[in-house]
């Protein structure tokens, strides 16, 4: 019994002695949360330097970072990343605008819903990359075909999220807007769209990493530089640090995109219940 009390005392004293400054606490939390990543990277470095693998199979993290730095200085990193981001984000924007419009149209018109509903059901779970050979035949090997593939793959989660969001708008909210004289058009733009926005935003948050993935995969399969194309040519030249540099760059860019998107979400959904709660992503 005394032992248990002792433990509790020590814990509570520990809390009281915890850093008082919220800034220090935040840095501490940030480090604690990313500890697994730090451990993984440290493990990589130690394993690579231990001589278990040749530098060809597993180059050291430091040499990969050196390569990234060199790429950054020469401008190759900027060129590659901007090509990939251009393809991913253009496709994403097309998917966002097209997906939200199609989703809205499908909730408004029975005819449009009748036509597209089965297509969405079949198309969503299907690996759209299977269309790549056809897209190459139709649109060639350059940006147009890559962006088309990105938009084609990313549009599905946006359409379904928009439909679910608009269908889930509370009946009383719609009625109260109609009560205040909202026309059909006003109802859609001023009520349905903002009310469904949390769901739509979730769909966009799913579509964004898909866009990046498809952009990189198409670059790997069709060439045309970019981060994916760069990794493939590094691989062909047996340039092991170059391949690993690509992986690290893609991971970093992907993380920044996701983080930016969730910051955008929190800014735009200040009114939403979740703005009051801590975010996980």
């Amino acid at each position, binding site marked *: 019994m005394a032992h248990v009390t002792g433990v509790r005392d020590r814990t509570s004293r520990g809390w009281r002695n915890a850093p008082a400054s919220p800034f220090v606490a935040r840095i501490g939390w940030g480090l604690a949360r990313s500890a697994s990543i730090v451990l993984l990277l440290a493990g990589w470095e130690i394993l690579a330097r231990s001589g278990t693998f040749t530098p060809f199979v597993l180059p050291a993290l430091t040499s990969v970072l050196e390569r990234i730095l060199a790429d950054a200085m020469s401008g190759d990193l900027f060129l590659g990343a901007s090509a990939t981001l251009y393809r991913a984000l253009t496709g994403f924007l097309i998917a966002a605008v097209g997906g939200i419009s199609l989703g809205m149209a499908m909730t408004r018109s029975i005819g449009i819903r009748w036509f597209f509903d089965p297509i969405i059901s079949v198309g969503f779970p299907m690996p759209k990359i299977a269309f790549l050979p056809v897209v190459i035949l139709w649109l060639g090997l350059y940006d147009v075909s890559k962006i088309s593939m990105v938009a084609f793959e990313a549009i599905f989660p946006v359409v379904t999220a928009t439909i679910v969001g608009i269908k889930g708008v509370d009946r009383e909210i719609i*009625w109260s807007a109609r009560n205040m004289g909202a026309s059909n058009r006003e109802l859609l733009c001023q009520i349905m769209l903002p*009310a469904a926005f949390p769901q739509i935003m979730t769909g966009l948050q799913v579509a964004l990493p898909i866009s990046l993935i498809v952009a990189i995969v198409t670059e790997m399969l069709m060439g045309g530089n970019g981060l994916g194309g760069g990794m493939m040519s590094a691989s062909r030249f047996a340039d092991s640090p170059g391949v690993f540099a690509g992986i690290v760059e893609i991971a970093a860019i992907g993380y920044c995109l996701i983080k930016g998107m969730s910051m955008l979400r929190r800014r735009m959904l200040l009114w939403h219940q979740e703005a009051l709660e801590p975010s996980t992503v």
Partner: protein
Amino acid sequence: MSASAQIVVKDVSHDYRPPVGRVVRALEDVSLSIREREFIALLGPSGCGKSTLLYLIGGFLRIENGRICVDGRAVTAPGPDRGVVFQHFALFPWKTVKGNVLYGLERGKLPRAERETRAQAFIDLVGLTGFEDSYPSQLSGGMKQRTAIARTLAFDPQILLMDEPFGALDAQTRSLMQTELLDIWQKTRKTVIFVTHDVQEAVYLAERVAVMTARPGRIKTIVDTAFDKNDPQIYRARTFVDKVDEIWGLVREEAIKAQGTHAR
């Protein structure tokens, strides 16, 4: 009575068709006349169709059998002449208190500055001064309901349709809101149809209480309940207590019947 009747409900029946399962008759042959500036309560056991009747008058549901006229015109769609206060507030969560109140005014012909003043006046009236820029998610239940009432009053409907507006509030807030509503009603003299299942609330607020039967809902009887609204001690008056007892007896019969049909 028909000469001054503002709302006339004549032989209205309504079926509720759930997406799955069988059709339920919610209302059967309901007829009701409501005078201008009257405060009438619709009282009945839960599921008796009182909200359905309110939404039919509001024009949100299609009238399949019978007729509903407001100011001599048949109801076909919702309109700003009939302002609704919903049970779950139905505020726009992405708009602030002020944005919510302004929404109903934006479709009117008032110039911008006047809309602002009017919205502020109604926010002040319901006691939300200082919360203009709060979002509904930051407000308590009582404050949300006040926002909803301010929003509906602001676009100046002739008729207020209130669907258990205080049902989600705690006892203290509820009692405050009742007094406030009476105050507003006496100041603005609107026609009020107030749906509730609380007998005391109905007797306290309304001039007439329409007691409805268990499903399918009919008007069982209409009881006069015009007490002195300005007497804070009215709850204790003998006549008031007797009236509550009388109506409670009527509702109780129906509640038991309703339970019987559920059990079957």
